[in-house]
């Protein structure tokens, strides 16, 4: 608030009042429909924020030279939100994992059944945890690599808090049974529309900040963040086109039907992986990994090759989710071949990251933060190899519909997405709060091992169960008839479901340790001198080594 002028505070208040009014209108139109409940949530959320704005409405004006410094407050809040969603999403993950082993853990209520909770997990971790981390780090990276302050005072808040409103609407919707049942796009039409508004603002903000840059060239990390923002917008809009039952109904019918819907859905779904869970996090990696390692990027040309390879090839691969289905065979073949070609740019990125560590391997050994990022690059390479492998039709005939997919997902989601995020946050947090290091290096170390153990247990359990399941479904007796019934395969899954829940629990514990450590870093450690150097107009620091924490 202290960073906003009073006219900006008025502006913010107006936006919030408008949002509150939208909430009231939704509540009135929706009445007993969940749409009305969501109206109330929008209202409460807006009024709560309005209260915050008004409470410091008459606070002193900000420094007049605020444009000469970076805008870091939204980033700090973004990190906090990201960690909160991490705990929520992973707790949901552990809970649903436990439900598959012990089904009575749904406690016989409607809202807590597996089908309703599962999307709260996926949305919570992908959008809540991942999305907030992406927004926060993108704000940080774009400012630092452009040597320019964010091109807006309110819009960063609008993007961040608007995005979180979307996540809240999505997750509360699922437990009430509001869903479009499109994987990773389950939120209903009005939340989708809201996300479009937020995302367009994000896009404009990002582009305007880049336009202000004092560096002649746009750094690789920003290429990835831009691809993430632009392509997710396209995917989101096309996949979510729908007709609501009425303006007071949460329910809508997607305009796509049957086989075309399947293709659009997996064009979206696969590229949500590509541009949300890959591009954005590669942007993160391209900044925080060389920063932390204090090493130059291994090869600029490799960066170019992998960036355009990923941006072009990924968009063709979605049909590998529909092998052997009623989708025409020719589309499946396109998806398969492009998935195989996609491995080259994917491995090029992973290799570029690992080779960047040349000359810094001693740091990897000693510094758990850098080790997080190193392991992330390894898992990135591993899960993309696995992905390309699973995309080959005969392999997919075994793996599809089984836990092998879930193993692959979490090799990517835990090993890559979460590891790179934690590594980046441990680099970013001390820099942002102007501390010289995290509160406790030992706790970073503890987190690292909990996360690694959790990931390995999870992934190995699911590889085992998936392959066993896939094999049992297609095992034939000597007489040429199927050997196992479906329930036979279900019974074989239970030990692995228990192991997975345990691995997930370890991973969740690690995230809790991280929360504590970040909290203590932000609260307790004293400021260090010299941090004022972190300003947009600082001359290029030729000759001086970059500070390890930043």
């Amino acid at each position, binding site marked *: 608030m202290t960073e906003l002028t009073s006219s900006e505070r008025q502006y913010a208040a107006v936006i919030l009042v408008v949002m509150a009014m939208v909430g009231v209108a939704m509540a009135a139109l929706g009445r007993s429909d969940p749409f009305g409940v969501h109206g109330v949530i929008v209202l409460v959320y807006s009024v709560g924020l309005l209260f915050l704005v008004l409470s410091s409405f008459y606070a002193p004006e900000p420094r007049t030279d605020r444009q000469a410094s970076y805008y870091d407050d939204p980033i700090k809040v973004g990190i906090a939100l990201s960690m909160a969603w991490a705990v929520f999403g992973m707790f949901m993950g552990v809970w649903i994992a436990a439900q598959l082993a012990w089904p009575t853990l749904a406690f016989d209520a409607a809202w807590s059944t597996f089908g309703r909770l599962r999307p709260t997990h996926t949305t919570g971790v992908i959008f809540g945890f991942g999305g907030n981390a992406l927004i926060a780090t993108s704000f940080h990276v774009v400012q630092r690599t452009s040597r320019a302050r964010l091109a807006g005072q309110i819009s960063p808040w609008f993007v961040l808090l608007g995005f979180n409103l979307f996540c809240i609407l999505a997750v509360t919707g699922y437990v009430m049974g509001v*869903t479009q049942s499109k994987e990773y796009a389950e939120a209903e039409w009005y939340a989708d529309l809201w996300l479009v508004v937020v995302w367009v603002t994000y896009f404009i903000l990002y582009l305007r900040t880049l336009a202000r840059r004092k560096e002649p060239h746009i750094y690789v990390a920003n290429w990835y963040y*831009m691809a993430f923002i*632009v392509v997710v917008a396209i995917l989101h809009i096309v996949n979510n086109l729908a007709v609501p039952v*009425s303006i007071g109904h949460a329910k809508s019918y997607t305009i796509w039907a049957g086989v075309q819907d399947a293709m659009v859905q997996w064009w979206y779904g696969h590229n949500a992986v590509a541009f949300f869970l890959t591009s954005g996090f590669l942007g993160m990696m391209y900044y925080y990994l060389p920063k932390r390692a204090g090493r130059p990027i291994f090869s600029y040309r490799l960066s170019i090759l992998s960036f355009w390879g990923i941006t072009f090839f990924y968009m*063709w*691969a979605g049909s590998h989710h529909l092998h052997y289905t009623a989708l025409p065979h020719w589309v499946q073949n396109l998806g398969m071949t492009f998935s195989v070609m996609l491995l080259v740019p994917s491995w090029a990125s992973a290799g570029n990251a690992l080779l960047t560590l040349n000359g810094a391997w001693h740091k990897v050994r000693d510094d758990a933060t850098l080790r997080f990022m190193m392991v992330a690059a390894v898992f990135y390479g591993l899960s993309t190899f696995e992905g390309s492998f699973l995309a080959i039709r005969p392999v997919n005939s075994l793996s599809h519909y089984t836990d092998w997919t879930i193993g692959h997902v979490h090799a990517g989601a835990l090993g890559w997405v979460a590891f790179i995020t934690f590594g980046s946050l441990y680099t970013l947090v001390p820099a942002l709060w102007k501390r010289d290091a995290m509160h406790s290096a030992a706790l970073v170390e503890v987190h690292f091992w909990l996360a690694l153990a959790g990931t390995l247990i999870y992934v190995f359990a699911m590889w085992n169960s998936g392959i066993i399941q896939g094999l049992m479904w297609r095992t034939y007796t000597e007489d040429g008839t199927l050997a196992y019934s479906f329930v036979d395969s279900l019974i074989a899954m239970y030990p692995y479901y228990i192991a997975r829940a345990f691995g997930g629990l370890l991973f969740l514990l690690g995230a809790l340790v991280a929360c504590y450590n970040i909290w203590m870093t932000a609260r307790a450690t004293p400021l260090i001198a010299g941090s004022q150097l972190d300003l947009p107009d600082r001359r290029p620091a030729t000759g001086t080594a970059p500070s390890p924490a930043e």
Partner: protein
Amino acid sequence: MPELFHRKIERTAIGFVLAIIAAASVGGLVEIAPLFTIHETVEEAPDMRLYTPLELAGRNIYEREGCYACHSQMIRTLRDDVERYGPYSLAVESKYDHPMLWGSKRTGPDLARIGGKYSDLWHVTHLMNPRDVVPESNMPSYRFLARTPLETADFGMQLAAMREVGVPYTDDMIANAARDALGQATPDSDFSAGVVERYGEKTQVSAFDGVATELTEMDALVAYLQVLGRLTDAAYKQTAASEKAPGSQQ
């Protein structure tokens, strides 16, 4: 030198964004657009019928409860899939599905041809608590469905919205939607003849949840489960024509 050109686009944010959009658009266009122009993508099935209002309501409950998270509705063109679940799924079978529910995970078995496989009573017992009939099951219990009355007031609007997105519901169907929902679940009532008349001889009229006097969400969900795979016979005809093999489901 390729990177010389790249050096240039690296200097303009707008140019870079346009390049990204160009590179990212091709794949989707080439794979999606032809699905509308290549005629054989969706097979012909003259006998294909529409979901009745009750079945559509059941489908919405199936979505709401996230059954698709554990159950696929897509029998693949693989020997073991066909031998376990029946003829492979055709595109036309989900022609009226907004959205499709093909699924991506089989924690439970495929349901594409579950219609008619079990009795209504079995479905009710199973949904109330799957472990009562399948002790090994990890499926959640859905007891609340049986005690939640089905809201039928907006069924006309539901069908109208489906018509907006291309499903050929008639004015007559839309006007009688709520009544048809009731009729399908109350055999021998005045309303049941109308459903059959509007949706065809093969429409199943039954007291799905076992209680004919009131309409619950259980009625709707079971009605939907019982119609899965039975909107058209096309898949059976297709396999019969293409292979003429005995014991195909062996």
